[in-house]
């Protein structure tokens, strides 16, 4: 038996989520082997550090852009070749796209939004978040092959001593695998995405207008954070739609979420409840966000944020 992981890359480099799914797989595998599948990775052996002993590295120009059906086909062939009974994927937009297709191909049960190592492996029961993070649901996967969709930052990274052997793998791809055609990709380069970020700095309507986002971006810069916003802010076009977080926007599962001038409406909180530590800066002590936050500062964001940025810079300089 082996545990298979889909290790995502971007421009040939592994994403943090790849190391996290590998760490998780190592824990689930016990003494068994962890096999990774990577697409056009430049240095696939890096995965050894996180418990992978073998990498099936696919080098194929046709797969340079993510394509759900083609990737699902390749992963299916890898799982069959390796006789894998457990497949672990992240919950990035791409993994969430590919996992249900993979589940059908492998006749596998799939649990999404998994928050921790399995409660038990026989029966195979995992804890997942449900009701937009307002509850947890323990789900038993009853099929022979099982797919775990691991929420970002839920398990963390665990380093291991070990080496990964890298094998070339050339799945047989069919024309139909490319019947959904990716025409163009429009993606900000060199910007931390909300899904990958350890820290997310988010602004709401309390910031009054798009011209005031400089201090938010500055804080994000200092902390290596992604920027985000509440829904009205993206609705009004102050910030791009891709930054909107909440129940109808992107989910946040970062270690730290800093909300500036956001009231903390239930639909906003629904998307950020999974963030581990929450900080709110708001001039209204009655704002509902204070009930959801770990730390709060009551006061005017236009005074507090610039001061905080200076102090964060000093802190970073000392702790670099």
């Amino acid at each position, binding site marked *: 038996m082996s545990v298979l992981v889909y290790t995502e890359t971007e421009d040939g480099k592994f994403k943090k989520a790849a190391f996290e799914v590998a760490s998780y797989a190592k824990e689930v595998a016990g003494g068994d082997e962890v096999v990774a599948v990577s697409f056009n990775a430049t240095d696939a052996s890096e995965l050894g550090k996180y418990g992978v002993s073998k990498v099936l590295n696919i080098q194929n120009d046709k797969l340079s852009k993510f394509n759900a059906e083609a990737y699902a086909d390749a992963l299916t062939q890898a799982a069959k070749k390796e006789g894998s009974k457990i497949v672990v994927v992240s919950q990035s937009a791409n993994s969430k796209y590919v996992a249900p297709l993979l589940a059908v191909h492998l006749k596998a049960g*799939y649990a999404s939004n998994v928050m921790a190592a399995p409660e038990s492996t026989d029966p195979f029961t995992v804890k997942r978040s449900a009701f937009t993070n307002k509850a947890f649901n323990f789900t038993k996967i009853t099929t022979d092959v099982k797919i775990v969709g691991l929420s970002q930052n839920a398990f963390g990274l665990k380093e291991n001593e070990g080496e990964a052997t890298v094998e070339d793998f050339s799945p047989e791809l069919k024309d139909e695998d490319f019947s959904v055609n990716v025409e163009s990709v429009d993606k900000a380069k060199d910007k931390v995405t909300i899904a990958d970020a350890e820290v997310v700095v988010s602004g709401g309507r309390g910031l009054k207008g798009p011209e005031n986002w400089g201090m938010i971006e500055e804080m994000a810069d200092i902390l290596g954070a992604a920027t985000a916003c509440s829904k009205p802010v993206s609705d009004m076009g102050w910030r791009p739609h891709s930054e909107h977080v909440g129940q109808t926007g992107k989910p946040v599962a970062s270690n730290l979420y800093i909300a500036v001038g956001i009231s903390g409406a239930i639909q906003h909180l629904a998307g950020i409840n999974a963030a581990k530590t929450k900080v709110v800066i708001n001039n209204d002590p009655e704002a509902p966000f204070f009930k959801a936050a770990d730390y*709060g500062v009551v006061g005017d964001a236009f005074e507090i944020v610039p001061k905080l940025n200076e102090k964060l810079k000093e802190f970073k300089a000392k702790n670099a």
Partner: protein
Amino acid sequence: MKILVCISHVPDTTSKINFTDGDSKFDTNGVNFVINPNDEFGLTRAMWFKEKQGASVDVVNVGGAETEPTLRKALAIGADNAIRVNTPATDGFQVAKQLAKVAKDGGYDLIIAGRESIDYNGGMVPGMLAGILDANFINTCISLEVEGDKATAIREIDGGKETLTASLPLVIGGQKGLVEESDLKIPNMRGIMQARKKPLNVVEPDEAATHTEAVKFEKPAPKGDVKLVDPENLDELIDLLHNEAKAI
């Protein structure tokens, strides 16, 4: 064009989430059920196709009789026919299997589902449905155009978006952006009257296996009170974030 919109019947977002029967069942007491918000965007987009390009729009739900008011609401918004597959929804795969049967029998060109239901947040039904049907699939759609048998969609990805094309039949997982929020259709009186006369067909389920089982639920541990930091003493905040929360 024949469009099928998959409607999931979910507690509205402000609902209190509680469990009964030894934390094994969702407590529906006092809960107001609505059309899943992601499906609302899809349904309104389907109505746009109907009005602008000529299309028929059916809606479907897999669930017990208690979901019928939600289907009636979809009819009041303007769908032509509703179908209810008479079996409780137990897991994503079982629902996808039932939907696949409806989709095959109806010969639909376009199947619009939501990127996820806001109750179990599975995010699996649309992809599994496409997989079972062997139809093209585009997830997290924020824009969809159809010209003849060719669809162009924009998909939200982490940190940006992607433009994709595919031929019909196509299944999408849709969300906000498919239509503007201000354009979301709300049932009016005329729609509600007409909906009473529109067909709501109850079909019996196919045999379908489940792949997963919800064993029990748990609520997160109550959170401690927020620690307030004096705006004049922001060093304390940094200290707490560094030493206590280990977040920076």
